[in-house]
């Protein structure tokens, strides 16, 4: 299979890190939890910024007593103790989240853990990545410097190019027909509202996992946060000039983690840009279907042996077993039923059942034990 060399390289790298830091603290074994850690950091730092942020554009550009989004960000950065640090943490935690999501995605792809019974995780992951990118972009509008203005205008002209619904989406985006204070309120609402929607997306992402790893161990958390502190200190962030609606900014500094779609827009017709984005998303979603392998043969319950003890359902890593009321002819109350599309044929339930009531087709218990033994000893 084409991912085999990539899988081998990933496993080699992981072994190398194991030699350095022991498997207990190998970040590769918490690859799904790393972005989640940065999500908590983003929520917390965002809450602190929200306490001071004022979502208006107040266009009286020359006023001395101007209070708007840009001045509030400036106040946070230059007048509140540690404000620059909190702002930096929020910004770089976003970047780090994208990096760790990409690592997570590559890892599950390279190790072939994204298909078949894991399809819900993959598809919800693609949607979550798109959401994270969009939320990050809305963060750039909120600063309300000349880059924010340019990005807002680029978004509007790109939306204009979408037939039928483009105008409607643009009106929703601007919260009107032009940039006003309501626009900033909308940007803030989208930024915060969608951030909490991520939690719902994560629930779908985890719903088929019995024991998802949600938090890395403290040692890894320290390192993740420490790296953030160092980057914040060594690469301080600065806002550009305050946005002036009468000005025509033409260039902007690209944050490659979030703003690459705008970079694409600079040399693509909007219609081609949307097609390219849609095609990229569809290819990502269909990736699991490009590989043909033989279908999983799910575990089977032998009804006459099942006592309804539920041990298999509790142990199944993929939530593939449900307990249903047993038929009236049974002397037990419950019966285990396997949902075949969720089953990975991992054999955990066979090990869990003390009554020989669940089996993998074409595989004897003794075969499974032999396989486990050889894996554990090899």
């Amino acid at each position: 299979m084409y991912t085999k060399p990539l899988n081998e390289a990933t496993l080699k790298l992981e072994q190398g890190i194991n030699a350095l830091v022991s498997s207990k603290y190998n970040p590769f074994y918490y690859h799904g939890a790393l972005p989640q850690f940065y999500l908590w950091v983003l929520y917390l730092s965002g809450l602190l910024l929200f306490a001071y942020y004022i979502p208006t554009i107040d266009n009286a550009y020359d006023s001395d007593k101007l209070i708007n989004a840009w001045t509030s960000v400036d106040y946070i950065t230059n007048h509140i103790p540690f404000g620059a640090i909190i702002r930096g943490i929020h910004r770089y935690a976003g970047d780090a989240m994208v990096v760790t999501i990409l690592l997570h995605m590559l890892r599950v792809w390279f190790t072939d853990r994204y298909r078949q019974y894991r399809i819900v995780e993959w598809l919800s992951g693609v949607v979550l990545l798109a959401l994270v990118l969009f939320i990050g972009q809305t963060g750039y509008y909120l600063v309300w410097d000349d880059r924010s203005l340019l990005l807002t205008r680029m978004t509007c002209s790109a939306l204009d190019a979408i037939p039928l619904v483009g105008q409607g989406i643009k009106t929703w985006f601007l919260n009107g027909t032009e940039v006003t204070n309501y626009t900033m309120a909308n940007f803030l609402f989208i930024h915060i509202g969608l951030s909490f929607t991520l939690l719902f997306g994560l629930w779908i992402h985890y719903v088929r996992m019995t024991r998802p790893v949600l938090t890395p161990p403290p040692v890894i958390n320290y390192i993740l946060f420490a790296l953030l502190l160092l980057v914040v200190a060594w690469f301080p962030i600065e806002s550009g000039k305050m946005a002036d609606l009468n000005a025509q900014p033409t260039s902007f500094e690209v944050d490659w983690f979030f703003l690459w779609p705008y970079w694409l827009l600079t040399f693509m017709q909007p219609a081609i840009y949307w097609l390219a984005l849609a095609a990229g998303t569809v290819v990502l979603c269909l990736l699991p279907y490009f590989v043909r392998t033989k279908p999983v043969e799910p575990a089977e319950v032998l009804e006459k042996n099942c006592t309804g003890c539920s041990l298999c359902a509790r142990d199944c890593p993929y939530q593939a077993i449900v307990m249903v009321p047993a038929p009236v002819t049974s002397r037990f109350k419950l019966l285990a039923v396997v949902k075949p599309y969720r089953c990975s044929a991992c054999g955990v339930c066979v090990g869990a059942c003390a009554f020989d009531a669940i089996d993998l087709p074409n595989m004897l218990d003794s075969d499974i034990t032999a396989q486990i033994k050889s894996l554990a000893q090899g």
Partner: protein
Amino acid sequence: MPDDKGPVAKIFCLLTVVFAAGCLLMALFMPWAELGLPATPPGPLQALAGLYGGGQGLIQAMVRAAQTDKNFPFYVYSSFLGLAMIAGAIALNFVGREETEKTVLPTKK
């Protein structure tokens, strides 16, 4: 890294803890200075202040940087706390690593 806690690992662990403590101390001296507290701290801290006073050149460079960017002290705290956390994590990696993991296969039925 060795699996057992041999002498090299112990020395490395000790150095890491000392480094982490140094970073924390450095980070704590900054608010001390910023709050305008006495340049010579009282009692037993004087010895430490003497050590700290050894790096006059470094301090002057920091003061100059602080004059040009008023967020500079915050970036210094941030750096030292970051370094301390990394050192702490390295120390924990030594202290907290498990003994050799064993896979026990239960005999079934």
